[in-house]
């Protein structure tokens, strides 16, 4: 199996000499193509920092991050933007849709900045909209959509460029349970039918249960790893997750 992401001995410090916090403490793991990986941890455990480092929004203090064999920690300036634009797709907790543009335009923007011809843009947007069941909202503005619809539009924008890796930061954080389920179904679909590789940060066990593998982070360190066995029901996987969460200590109890 092709390795899409490799995180090697990554450390991240905040603050200056004498007074600093270790946000990430020697983390290493890898993600294969077609995997759907969840990262769980309490607030302040460093999971979002990790995602930011992978997505090149933040820089690591030491260590390397390789995306399909390319070291992203040494990229700079426009090459960094090019990398972000072409190899990564993002889904954020607060959607990050442009409020001035319609859903269609928001999705199309990801392609037009890659200089994809208009005809193809049209075709691909319609295609993805059908798959994610957002055809009805294409002409609507973000404020006219529900949270779930917004997040599915954001997902469509994230995957339309066929990125190597989709990064999702608490994608269900602002959604109610019904919308969460629909979004996660979409993720499942993207992962299974479109072979998209997804790395999702969450602190919600239910959301995490849709992933095929879960990494637990505590105080900046990799704490444990859980893999969903073949043919294992999601309910069982969910219970396993809960077990690990309670093992992690009181910190996570509040989120269940």
């Amino acid at each position: 199996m092709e390795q899409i992401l490799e995180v090697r001995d990554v450390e991240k410090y905040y603050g200056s000499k004498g007074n600093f916090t270790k946000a990430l403490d020697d983390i290493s793991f890898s993600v294969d193509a077609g995997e759907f990986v969840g990262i769980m941890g309490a607030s302040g455990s460093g999971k979002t920092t990790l995602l930011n480092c992978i997505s090149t929004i933040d820089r690591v203090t030491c260590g390397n991050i390789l995306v399909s064999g390319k070291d992203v920690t040494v990229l700079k300036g426009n090459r960094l933007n090019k990398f972000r634009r072409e190899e990564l797709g993002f889904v954020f907790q607060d959607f990050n849709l442009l409020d001035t543009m319609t859903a269609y335009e928001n999705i199309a923007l990801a392609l037009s900045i890659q200089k994809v011809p208009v005809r193809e843009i049209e075709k691909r947007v319609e295609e993805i909209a059908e798959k994610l069941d957002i055809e009805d909202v294409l002409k609507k503005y973000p404020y006219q959509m529900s949270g779930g619809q917004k997040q599915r539009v954001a997902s469509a924008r994230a995957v339309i460029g066929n990125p190597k890796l989709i990064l999702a930061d608490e994608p269900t954080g602002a959604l109610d349970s019904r919308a969460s389920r629909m979004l996660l179904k979409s993720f499942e679909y993207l992962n299974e039918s479109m072979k998209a590789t997804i790395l999702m940060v969450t602190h919600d066990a239910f959301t995490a249960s849709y992933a095929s593998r879960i990494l637990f982070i505590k105080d900046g360190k990799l704490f444990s790893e859980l893999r969903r066995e073949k043919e294992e029901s999601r309910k069982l996987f969910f219970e396993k997750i809960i077990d690990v969460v309670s093992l992690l200590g009181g910190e996570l109890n509040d989120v269940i």
Partner: protein
Amino acid sequence: MMLFKLSLKNIKKSFKDYVIYFMTLILGVAIFYVFNAMDSQTAMMRLSQSTKEIVELMIYMLTGVSVVVALILGFLIVYASNFLIRRRKKEFGIYMTLGMGKREISRILLGETILIGLLSLAAGIGIGVFASQFMSILVAKMFETDMSAYTFIFSRQAAVKTVACFGIMYLIVIIFNVFTISRYKLIDLFHACRKNEKGRLKSSGLAVVLFAVSCAVLAYAYIQVAFHTQELDQQKTMLMIVLGCVGTFLMFWSLSGFLLKLLQRIGKFYHRGLNAFVLRQVNSNINTAVFSMTIICLLFFVTITVLSTGLSLNHAFRQELTRNCPVDMNLVKTMDVPGSTDDPAVAASLLTVEESMKNLDFDFSLLQDWVEITVYTDETFTWNQVFRGEMKEEVEKKFPRIRWDGCQSIVGVSEYNKLASYYGMPVCELSEGEYQVVCDFSSMERLFNRSLADNTPVTIGETTLLPRETVCADGFLLMNIQNSNLGFYLVPDSVIAEYAGTVLSREENILAANYAAEKKQEKKEIEERVKAWMNDDAVWRNMAGSGIAVDGLTKIYIYDSAVGLSSVITFIAIYLGIVFLIAGAALLALKELSESTVNKERYAILDKIGVDEKQKHQALLWQMGIFFGLPMLLAMIHAVFGILYASNLLNMYAEKDMRSSLVFTGAFLIFVYGGYFLATYMGSRRIIDEK
């Protein structure tokens, strides 16, 4: 004291955001001071009597214009500070959760306003005092006075006026602020940063329709104003102004929606790079500011029109002067007053101008040469003969107060030719049985031309004359600032010879003369002596006593007042132009900066989906460029027709006179507007680049 420290810190912290507002305030104060200090600046100059009158007129008018300027600046300041307050909702929210009352917040704002007010007044007046010294040099140059008596002047009166005016404005700002703060609810303050585009959605179909409507309204007003200038009375002119305003408003209301619709059709363009984003940004920017865009556009329109016409008026005046003032002096005297010759007035009215001058001891050695001619009237030759039938009704409609029994002036052709060649004007030829009208005042000229084209016969005594040509001849009898010969009739000498003293009576005699001098300075000396003669009590009493005065105009006097008048117009044009431009540009800049928090979020999203820095900056530049460009572009289109209107009204020849003033106006616009644009762009760029 704590609150004051907070104010001070706030200003320091947000200085970069305030800088445009602050600079505009300083500029406003400085300009206000400079133009109000004109009074004391000119008081020190040695001005001739005629110039002094003009300068007084100018100062009087500037005072009036200052009221308008104060209103505009007041509006700007209140509006701008409201912008700035709204930006800080979140900050106030934090103060309030910390337990600070609205009263304390108001006090913080009070401190800030006072601080900004004091600083801007001090800096503005400081700059103004220096700028007004340059202004005096400019004034001196315009009125052609010497600057030998020049001293550095500080006008206390202007300073007091400036402080009072701006003090009132700041007071209004404070009241507004307190009012705004008192209406805030904590919950709103916290949601302030989550402001989303809402309810601004306009039906694009409606936008297209309204765009068409606004185009039609503007086109109608343009055509009326530029090509039917003479047909507009006061009421209609007002209507055109209202149509222009409404059209502008509708244009801004619909323009971005229309453009969006149009460009979306061209998918290739719309979905290339960040084009869609930029257009959406512009659309949202304009849609939240339709009213201010309208005001700004109209301000620019006034700026461009006033500056270019005001400046070229000066130019046009000077050009016309050379034509209209060919000799040094004109004297006029009423002739042949009816009555007994025992009456001294009647006796005096029988003398020619030259004879009167001799009687009054005029020193003829002052004059090089002179020409005297007589203007006749015939009681029965009135407007009734000039306009008949349909023409008469038309003229009546246009000039409802015309006196149909008003006599026409009549001059013998050879006498006129003598004067015309003395003036260096073309001479006229007439055969027996012909007449010609000489006129150079354009609206009268048009009417006379109709009468001539109709081949209207004219009867004097028993002789009937027919027009020699179908258009008026160019010329005049008396010197003037502008073309103002309302028209007179040239008739063959034989008609004068036959009817003089019977049907034709002498109306007035006109004497034109040149001073016996070549150099300007010598001419000025002679001018003084002529004036002394005219103002001499004995002479004056003699003439006034008889009721028959020798009235005069000299070239130097006309030049002085013409230069003065055009200078007054130029000064007022510059004053209004600068203030309007600055007000408009500052409004745009502040509006754009106040949006920068929202912009920042949007550009941050671009960052996250991997847009290059350079592309992002380009998008911002386009967004700002379009936002700044649109009102200016529309204002320029307005101005083309506004200038056409003005030049039609003032009888100027657009292309020739306007070029240099248009260039000046253009350079000025680019400098000031470009400055504001750059400052805004840099400011916004700094904000969106902040991490």
